């Protein structure tokens, strides 16, 4: 298939050879192409980290913001112009560490955005400290005796927060990842796609082989609409289930909840502000 629409020419990708990030880039571009998204109407929003460089490698608009803060920016971009497709993408540290509070509250808001998390269980760009998803015992230059904090399980937390779409994939399987990304993008509401991604430079434990061995696909008959079953699945730690773990179709999206869109779907950025002058004039006519 052709990805010319989303591919940039002559770019120097700053990732390490063999890194799982390349697969994610591929899967995402393929998904976008297959969904026939217009690059001009797409915004990729990211934070800081290796993963967060992704938008620089796609032919589209982007907002590359601060470490940990990209979900807030993404929510607002979508709110002021719901006609844009907004995909927020960053690393596990950025999303669940520095950005943990925004992760929670974005799920509560449920904006119609897709959230792709490159989960390599490590801080790549800063050279190998533990991330919130690092496994117990994982040794690093600052966790010299190994991680002992309980790993953050984004899937179970998202289910507990009643997120509207929760999926996990492994980038060893680009094709399946692409399919799930497509579903996440077409899903109306916040969609989490946590992608297991080997970091070949700083995570010598959770390698391609390790992930292959410690993951399995959900059976076809698995029902992602049952929250309690989803929670059980989400808590499974070894092997880790892959696929769409939870879907809650009942949640209204953030933009639709905003009063400014109740009657009029025009993005507020396109609305003129003429009535404001008469509003102010009226204000001064009313008695104090």
């Amino acid at each position, binding site marked *: 298939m052709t990805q010319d629409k989303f591919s940039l020419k002559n770019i120097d990708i700053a990732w390490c050879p063999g890194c799982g990030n390349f697969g994610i880039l591929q899967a995402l571009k393929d998904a976008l192409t297959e969904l026939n998204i217009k690059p001009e109407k797409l915004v990729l929003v990211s934070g800081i980290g290796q993963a967060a460089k992704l938008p620089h490698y796609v032919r*589209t608009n*982007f907002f590359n913001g601060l470490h940990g803060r990209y979900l807030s920016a993404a929510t607002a971009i979508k709110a*002021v112009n719901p006609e844009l497709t907004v995909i927020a993408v960053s690393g596990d540290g950025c999303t669940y560490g520095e950005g943990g509070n*925004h992760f929670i*509250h974005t799920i509560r808001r449920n904006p119609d955005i897709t959230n792709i998390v490159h989960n390599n269980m490590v801080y790549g760009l800063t050279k190998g400290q533990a991330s919130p998803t690092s496994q117990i015992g994982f040794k690093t230059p600052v966790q010299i005796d190994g991680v002992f904090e309980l790993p953050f399980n984004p899937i179970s937390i998202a289910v507990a927060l009643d997120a509207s779409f929760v999926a996990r994939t492994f980038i060893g399987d680009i094709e399946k990842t692409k399919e799930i990304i497509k579903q996440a993008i077409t899903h109306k509401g916040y969609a989490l796609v946590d992608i297991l991604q080997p970091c070949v430079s700083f995570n010598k434990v959770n390698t391609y082989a390790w992930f292959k061995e410690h993951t399995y696909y959900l059976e076809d008959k698995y029902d992602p609409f049952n929250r309690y079953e989803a929670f059980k699945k989400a808590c499974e730690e070894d092997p880790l289930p892959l696929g769409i773990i939870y879907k809650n179709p009942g949640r209204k999206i953030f933009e639709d909840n905003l009063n400014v869109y109740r009657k009029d779907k025009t993005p*507020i950025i396109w609305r003129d502000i003429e009535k404001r002058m008469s509003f102010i004039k009226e204000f001064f006519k009313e008695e*104090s």
Partner: protein
Amino acid sequence: MAKPNISIVIIGEAGQGINSVGEILVKVVQSYGLYAFAWTELMSRIRGGLNSTQIIISNQRARAPLQRIDLLVPLKEKGVYHHHEQFTNETMILSEFPVNNYNSYQIPYLKKAREIGDPIFANIIAAGLLIGLVNIPFEYLKKFIVRQFKTKGENVINSNIIAAEFGFNSAISIKKMYPEKFNGIPNDDVSKEKVIDGSTAIALGAIAGGVKFLAAYPMTPSSGVWTYLARVGNELDIITEQAEDEISAMNMGLGASYAGARAMVTTSGGGFDLMTEGLSLAGIQETPIVVHLAQRPGPATGLPTRTEQADLELALYAGHGEFPRIIFAPGNYEQGFYLTALAFDWTERFQTPVFVLTDQFFIDSLYSVKPFDLSRIKISNYVVETQEDYERYKLNETGISPRGIPGYGRGFVHGDCHHHDENGHISEDLKLRTKMVDKLMNKYRAINSELIEPELVGTPDYELLVLCWGSNYEIVKEAIRLINSKNISMLHFSQVYPIHPVTYQYLKKARKLCMVENNATGQMAKLLKLTFGINIENLILKYNGLPFSVEEVANRIGNLI
């Protein structure tokens, strides 16, 4: 001798509606045609404690606290002597509680209120009493009550009127023993004005400036602007969102702005600290944002419901790295309105953050203004439709590249937080780095051609020049008027950064300089020293959480001459 104004203080507990008495009085007095001003000092609690509101009624425009108290209304016993340092020989205490050693008159506010059905009516009784004492016909108060409580039903209206009448009638007997010292002469022009508070002034400025998006996290005294915009947002196409924290608020603001919505955040010191990384992002990403920073006394939680001007340096230097910024500090509600509207224009035009710096005193005061002149509001469009070869950070002489937004045109808009190339891609080209830093700094050339001059009040032939900034405008102006010396003038800065170069001439001309600031270190004086190399030896500082009073400033200026 008749006084030019009368100063009334009402004191009571949080929950007794002390500041609503202020609001009633100011609005009723204004509707009658006199100038009125109220400001409030509150404790950080919802019930109990001791809060007070000062109301000044005058034949001239009144917008500044007075030291002197003419009438005191204590709705709580412990409030009787709380302000004793401000009492004069003529202070009259209108009290339900015993008063020793001061002129007083007994009024059973609470007793009567309970009779009417609820102790809360005490404040309407007080309002009636005071309206009566300043000789305003009862119908003005009645009209206000009817309007204010129209949604609450007949019963509520009637009880309020009964309470108001009781107070009003009490005034008649008092007036016999209390010689009138203030003689209000109603004026039609005044009754055509409109009473507003500082939050409203800023919010209206934002509305006029085109705000489409506000994100905030609750924080006193900054939330009023948000409350106002939330109330009118549906009607005026404004999204207001409560963020989970200030960091999110700021980053939402930047996302909204990147996508084409004029955006603002409103916060106070501690919340702003959390926004400073985002401010730095706005700087390098060149994304417009208006920051309303409403000051209160710090450090940390400090005195959360009081006033101070100690975050000027914070606004000046917050955010890591170097990038341009603009800081307005309105002196009154007119400036608040026009400068806030201008802040939206400038942040779009210069693509760099613009601050509106206020404080609790500014935000929570009440006085009337003439209808704002909307012809002074300029709405320009600074967003371009992108072409295929669009580059967000195109280098040019001015440092200001045409700004596109995503989805408008055939180009791509790359908002980036790194050192980047003209297209917005991460770059490690170190020669370009210098150019990109210069690009940011070059914006000051354009900004500097637009600066707002400080305002001189008084003779141009001053010897002593009294400097001030932000919310001290009206106080210092009134103090200078009170001193009434032909050698003393005031110079007020409503744009505190960058400072207009004409300032240098003003400073040079003075034989003596003095700066009035609500902080402990003289931050604006330092900024002037830094900018012009001129030392301002005389600092009139106050940092106990209260605004200056007119007499206090006048006396402290007096000490200099």
